[in-house]
């Protein structure tokens, strides 16, 4: 009876997807939401689902890119993959992907099921789709209004990891690696120290508590912020000396590295991508696709979750760097990106109030997790800090970091008229913009009227 009901719901959902397409909508979760409403355990009824070939990718940062890389590499080697590439990473998104890529009787077309999964909903998804393989990219501060503290997410992931599971974890991220205690099999991926690795020895530099004993973790160096070779100063927990897969010989100039005996061309050369490459190679290796084949696939890889846009504006070029609000890692990466350009520049920053869901609020404290010192030596002629509610706080973070107060203009407004009028005062054509996607889209909508 359940099976018959499943088939009816599936047909209805497929019809819904068809309608979405007719209306020009993507419909990445609606069909799944509809199906799960009618049948709570809907996902469990699909056939041709092999847990050994099912993989979830979760973690704070890097999920989408890694998912895209893995799927791209597997497909390039001829594998059939069912996935949620559109970033719909809740259970409804997973269900929709399976509805889309299955027969009328619910036989999944893909031989491999690769899903990006939201950390908070991992348990819910796992309950219906018991994947044997789980990748945890990292567990870091993010969206505190939803996630509170990293330990909140850690406990949610740890609850899912079990002795029947194989996990792929970042060897240089303490929280992710510490999940080794709960898993049956652990595969670590790593990035060797490279020319953009750095140390932090400033008085105000802080690290994190050890996920095992809650004392201080010390990093010998960082490959990206909060990720690098580490050791607990109390219990001795440390990154493994011989990880299973390691990216070595990173050459940023020629955009190459070595991994698993193969020289690999990197399509994107920001340091955090190296971990995505390492993880993709580790997973593909487990699925029988060698590093050589993965490397070849990287040549045609395009990241759909890109975070840099170049916008011509009058004589200027605005380089927009997308950040995730309440996520210090993406803000730090944005600061680092700007500081690499030593040309004279104008820096527009709008951290903005948080308006994803109620209650809206004005948190900017994640900016104090980021180091701004690199900006001081990057030839910023002037900084324009805008936003209705947090422009002063943002400016204050820069001032605390040593940025000269007289080179910051504060615009306590989100009116594009005000922002572009201020920008027009400067003859410097090299402009960097950091803000969240929604504000950027608003600015771009209005841009033609200022041209």
């Amino acid at each position, binding site marked *: 009876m359940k099976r018959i009901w499943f088939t009816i719901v599936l047909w209805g959902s497929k019809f819904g997807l068809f309608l979405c397409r007719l209306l020009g909508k993507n419909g990445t979760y609606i069909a799944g939401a509809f199906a799960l409403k009618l049948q709570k355990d809907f996902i469990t009824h699909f056939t041709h689902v092999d847990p050994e070939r099912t993989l979830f990718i979760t973690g704070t940062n890097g999920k989408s890119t890694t998912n895209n890389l893995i799927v791209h590499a597997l497909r390039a080697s001829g594998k059939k993959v069912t996935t949620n590439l559109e970033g719909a990473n809740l259970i409804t998104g997973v269900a929709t992907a399976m509805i889309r890529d299955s027969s009328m009787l619910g036989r999944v077309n893909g031989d491999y099921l690769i899903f990006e999964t939201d950390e908070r909903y991992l348990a819910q998804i796992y309950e219906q789709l018991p994947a044997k393989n789980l990748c945890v990219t990292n567990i870091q*501060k993010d969206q*505190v*209004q*939803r*996630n*509170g*503290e*990293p*330990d*909140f997410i850690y406990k949610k992931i740890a609850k899912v990891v079990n002795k029947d599971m194989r996990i792929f974890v970042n060897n240089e991220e303490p929280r992710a690696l510490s999940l080794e205690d709960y898993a049956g099999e652990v595969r670590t991926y790593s990035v060797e120290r490279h020319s953009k690795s750095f140390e932090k020895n400033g*008085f*105000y530099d*802080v*690290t*994190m*508590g050890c996920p095992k004993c*809650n*004392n*201080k*973790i010390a990093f010998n160096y960082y490959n990206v912020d909060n990720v690098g070779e580490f050791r607990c*100063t*109390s219990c001795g927990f440390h990154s493994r000396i011989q990880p299973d897969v390691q990216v070595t010989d990173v050459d940023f100039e020629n955009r190459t590295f070595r991994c698993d005996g193969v020289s690999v061309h990197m399509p994107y050369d920001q340091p955090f991508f190296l971990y995505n490459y390492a993880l993709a190679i580790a997973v593909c290796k487990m699925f029988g696709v060698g590093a050589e084949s993965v490397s070849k696939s990287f040549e045609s890889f395009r990241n759909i979750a890109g975070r840099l846009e170049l916008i011509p504006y009058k004589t200027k070029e605005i380089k927009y760097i997308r950040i995730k609000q309440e996520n*210090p890692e993406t803000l730090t990466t944005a600061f680092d990106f700007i500081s690499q350009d030593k040309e004279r520049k104008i820096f527009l920053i709008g951290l903005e*109030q*948080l*308006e994803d869901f109620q*209650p*809206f*609020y*004005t*948190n*900017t*404290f*994640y*900016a*104090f*997790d*980021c180091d701004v010192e690199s900006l001081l030596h990057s030839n910023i002629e002037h900084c324009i800090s805008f936003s*209705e*509610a*947090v*422009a*002063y*706080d943002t*400016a*204050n*973070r820069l*001032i*605390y970091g040593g940025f000269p107060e007289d080179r910051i203009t*504060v615009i*306590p407004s989100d009116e594009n008229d005000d922002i572009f009028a201020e920008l027009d005062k400067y003859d410097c054509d090299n402009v960097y913009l950091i803000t969240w996607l929604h504000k950027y889209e608003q600015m771009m909508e209005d841009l033609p009227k200022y041209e």
Partner: protein
Amino acid sequence: MNKLNITWCWPDILNLHGDRGNVMALVRIAEKMGLEAEVHKVVNFGDEIDLDNTDILLLNPGEFKSCEYIVNAFSRIKEDLDDYIYRGGVILAVGTTGASFGKTIRKLDGTAVTGLGYLDMECRERDSIVGDDLICKMRETGFDLNGSQIQVMDTFLNGDIALGDVEYGYGNCSYEDRREGARTENLIFTNMLGPVLVKNPWLAQELILWAMSSKGVMNLLKPDEGEFELERKSLECVRRYNQTKQNK
């Protein structure tokens, strides 16, 4: 030059919300007040805390699990801590860390931990998170304080020990309770993040005045009114935003 000794407890472990800004603010304001600020770090929970050389003890918010570790660490030097508090030593405990100074900490798994007991309050871990802005008027001083709060625990006061009265926000345990934080002697617990002393330099100044007067140093320089102009403008923006955000 008079010296202000700040003991920064477990900076790497109690490090959730950019809270190192609180130390930066204390040092900055102390220097504006003509003091030499010296910061001593306590790195791990087993390390010694030198209360004899402390004027301000700073505990930033950590993960909820850290409360127990803090209680254990201070229990080992409870008598020294008693002396410190009753001779007017300043303690700022931000966010979840404040629970350690209360009477009881109740966890979601049903277990409870006995706190250090200085603040007559009970803290209960929440199963969901409340994130919002928080604006309050600090009792006694009449200061406006503002920040954001990420509430992973609720705090129930048993006596009239609130630090402030809520103008906007959730405060200790509900939108109806209207009380924020707690205080006894110069021990302050606040739910405000921001970092709280960066956003409210007048509070940093007040803590420094308390700390220095408790060791007999009076008549300190006070920064000019204009020094905190940027923070006052920020407060006005935040206040206006919270008055109008329902219309968005």
